[in-house]
């Protein structure tokens, strides 16, 4: 009798633990912040992360295959001229406020987002391309473009916050949503408390597989050391964005934590030149710096080997980054000296330059990285570098006004395609990004190649055009690709947590994370 009672008790306890575990919320810690939960005015990582975990878009990136697949749309047709996209929606889609998500809601959402077009800039990723949106029938919507766009399926995907679809029933029609909206799931947004947390609950009406954890909370920490302490103390289950390189190394050795860095990262760091400003208006000077910079030393000394050197701006992942071509040369001090001698610089008449960096925006390691770069350039014996720094607001102002000749910057892609790594500094925003490449003799060639590439649907042809730009850039050197930001791809979890993988979009999918 005692045995039976014991077994019953054990089963009850086990059942109780299992039930508690199933109901216990998943706690994700981050140092990122939500700025504004508005489809028409958000343009930052964590705001988009929250929005895309609570609603869908017409298409999405498959985290396994990295191909664009249907999200709210189950299929689509593209007209032969590449100007008309007809999307066929999944039947019986609903928002969590009970309203149906059909063609009318898709048109209403996208029209509203484009009309409101907030100052933060995210809508600019879709607005110039969309001419008109029409409802064909309750589950069919037709989008007509202003110009053929080879990456339109990416632009209209859930990667872009402005492309997400939301309910006309709940979302205010004429003002920014600011957290007041209803989506299609997988989660519904329960509460957002600024600088504190975001609470989610699984939406039972989600069309896809049910989220593996019903309740999720994302807690905001002020810095990487607090985030590390929180996961070590067991206050959170997952620590994601952003851990320090040194913390990542030491956490890898901790037995009560699981730490993974999902490389390669699509986030990159690079050096830019204002090609109109002396002495950087001389391409031999820029080429010499390319040969002198020591990427390995930066990655080892500053990032403990977690970040890795890169030799092209385009991440080497195919798909979605077909056409990556590591074309920049490895370090060669003799070649650097030779080039500098050719243009009249030598030990007696050194090249005296400033290297600008911003001390906080890219984390606390920035000054160290700039110091290592300075050291590696000065190893030539022909270059003298003075480090200069400015806070982010002042830095970007000086950049836009062309005051900085050589400076460090970072890039997190707006969408996952090579053009987003090649066009911004050369043809799209050369002034605001400080390269003034519009004054370079080869500017028109870049413009023509990139214009053809972004309207070429055939990926093989497009890849060739992107390779051409990468080869050209080695001669013109508007940029020097330096390292991939792998630390942003690090995620630490408690041992009983599974599914917290970071994909090429640099994000985790909270619907796939669960605790044992």
């Amino acid at each position: 009798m005692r045995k039976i009672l014991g077994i019953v008790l054990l089963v009850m306890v086990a059942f109780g633990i299992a039930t508690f575990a199933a109901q216990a919320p998943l706690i994700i810690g981050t140092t990122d912040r939500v700025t504004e939960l508005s489809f028409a005015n958000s343009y930052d990582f964590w705001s988009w992360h929250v929005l895309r975990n609570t609603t869908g878009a017409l298409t999405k990136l498959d985290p396994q295959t990295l191909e664009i697949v249907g999200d709210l749309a189950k299929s689509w047709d593209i007209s032969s001229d590449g100007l008309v996209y007809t999307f066929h929606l999944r039947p019986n889609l609903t928002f969590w406020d009970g309203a149906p998500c059909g063609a009318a809601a898709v048109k209403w959402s996208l029209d509203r987002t484009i009309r409101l077009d907030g100052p933060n800039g995210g809508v600019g990723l879709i607005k110039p391309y969309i001419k008109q949106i029409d409802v064909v029938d309750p589950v069919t919507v037709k989008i007509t473009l202003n110009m053929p766009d080879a990456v339109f399926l990416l632009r209209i995907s859930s990667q872009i916050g402005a492309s997400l679809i939301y309910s006309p029933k709940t979302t205010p029609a004429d003002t920014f949503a600011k957290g007041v909206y209803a989506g299609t799931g997988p989660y519904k947004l329960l509460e957002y408390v600024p600088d504190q947390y975001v609470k989610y609950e699984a939406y039972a009406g989600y069309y896809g597989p049910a989220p593996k954890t019903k309740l999720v909370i994302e807690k905001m920490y002020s810095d990487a050391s607090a985030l590390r302490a929180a996961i070590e103390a067991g206050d959170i289950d997952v620590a994601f964005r952003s851990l320090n390189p040194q913390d990542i190394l030491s956490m890898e050795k901790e037995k009560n934590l699981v730490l993974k860095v999902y490389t390669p990262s699509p986030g990159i760091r690079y050096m830019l030149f204002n090609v109109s400003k002396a002495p950087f208006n001389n391409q031999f000077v820029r080429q010499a710096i390319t040969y002198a910079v020591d990427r390995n030393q930066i990655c080892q000394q500053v990032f403990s080997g977690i970040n890795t050197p890169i030799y092209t701006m385009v991440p080497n992942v195919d798909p979605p980054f077909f056409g990556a071509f590591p074309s920049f040369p490895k370090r060669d001090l003799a070649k650097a000296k030779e080039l500098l001698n050719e243009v009249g610089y030598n030990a007696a008449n050194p090249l005296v330059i400033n290297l600008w960096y911003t001390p906080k925006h890219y984390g606390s390691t920035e000054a160290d990285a700039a110091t290592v770069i300075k050291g590696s350039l000065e190893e030539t014996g022909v270059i003298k570098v003075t480090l200069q720094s400015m806070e982010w607001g002042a830095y970007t102002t000086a950049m836009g006004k062309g005051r900085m000749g050589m400076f460090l910057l970072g890039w997190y892609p707006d969408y996952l395609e090579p053009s987003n790594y090649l066009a911004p500094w050369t043809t799209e925003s050369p002034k605001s990004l400080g390269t003034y490449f519009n004054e370079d003799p080869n500017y028109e060639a870049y413009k023509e190649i990139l214009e053809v590439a972004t309207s070429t649907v055939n990926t093989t042809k497009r890849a060739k055009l992107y390779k051409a730009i990468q080869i050209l850039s080695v001669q013109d050197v508007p940029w020097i690709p330096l390292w991939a930001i792998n630390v942003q791809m690090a995620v630490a979890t408690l041992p009983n947590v599974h599914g917290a993988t970071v994909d090429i979009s640099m994000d985790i999918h909270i619907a796939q994370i669960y605790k044992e």
Partner: protein
Amino acid sequence: MGGISRYILQRLLLTIPMLFILITLVFIVMRMMPGGPAEAMLGGRNVSLEQLAKVRHEYGLDRPLGVQYLSYMDDILHGNFKNSVLTGRPVLTELFTRFPATLELAFWGMLFALIFGFGTGIIASTQADRPIDHTIRVFHIGSFAMPLFWLGLMLQIIFAVKLGWLPVASRISGRMAFSFQSVTGFYLIDALLSGNGAIIADVAKHLILPSITLGFAQAGFLGRITRASMLEVLDADYITTARAKGVKERIVIFSHALHNALIPIVTVFGLQFAILMGGAILTETVFSWPGVAQFLVRSIDARDFHSIQGSIVFIAIFISVINLIVDVLYSVIDPRVRY
């Protein structure tokens, strides 16, 4: 109108020019700094100069400085602190959302400082120049010499990471947040109102480390002042008389001496509140405490002019009110003080 009411009114009226000067100074300093909110927000992104100009226009930053200033003053006089460029929400909403967190932390930090500062100061004064006095002196000097940032980190590592007794940071644990709804913004009051013991314990545990960190330096300072003030009073003739009359030492200390030693202590307490707000910036950062101070730091990084100006005015009003309360308290503590 009674004397005290007239005094309060006078002080409130004096606050107006002080705020006017402060707003003007902050406005000028912010505009002198290189870079603006549009550049901080969109800089480094794939946006054209035209788009940057559009944003500057949208926030009125392309108008002449004089026009911007007059417009801002006009808005403030109408109670409009404008929208935060950082979050898109009204600055006042942002401040009122975060202010309870700062006030709650400041209250418990100050309470800790009072209990420890006062207690140790009194003990030190009654045991003057004995070993216990020297030990307390080391504690006092050490407490305000210790960097607040470092102290917070050490407390986190010892009590949260190593011992696991207390949470690392924030105001409530993720597990409890689903059963908790804040009504007043003061989490401890909300927790008490909920009547849920687990939530009360959780919120209280979250308050311990930040309160100690914030109050530690103040405790040392208050302790030094209490000791000095008490020693001065303990030497007075009326204390000697009281002792000669056989009044119990406890009554001599707490009733006769302490009461008369309070004026300088209360003065320092009022001034310490301003310093406490400075300390709150570090404490809120270390403990991820979502208060006004942390919002101010983020706003400065983002060159969010509206939020910076609003936050500073808000903090200035708060400190003015605290100092006014302290001044009014004088008349309660010391009957000789009359307004």
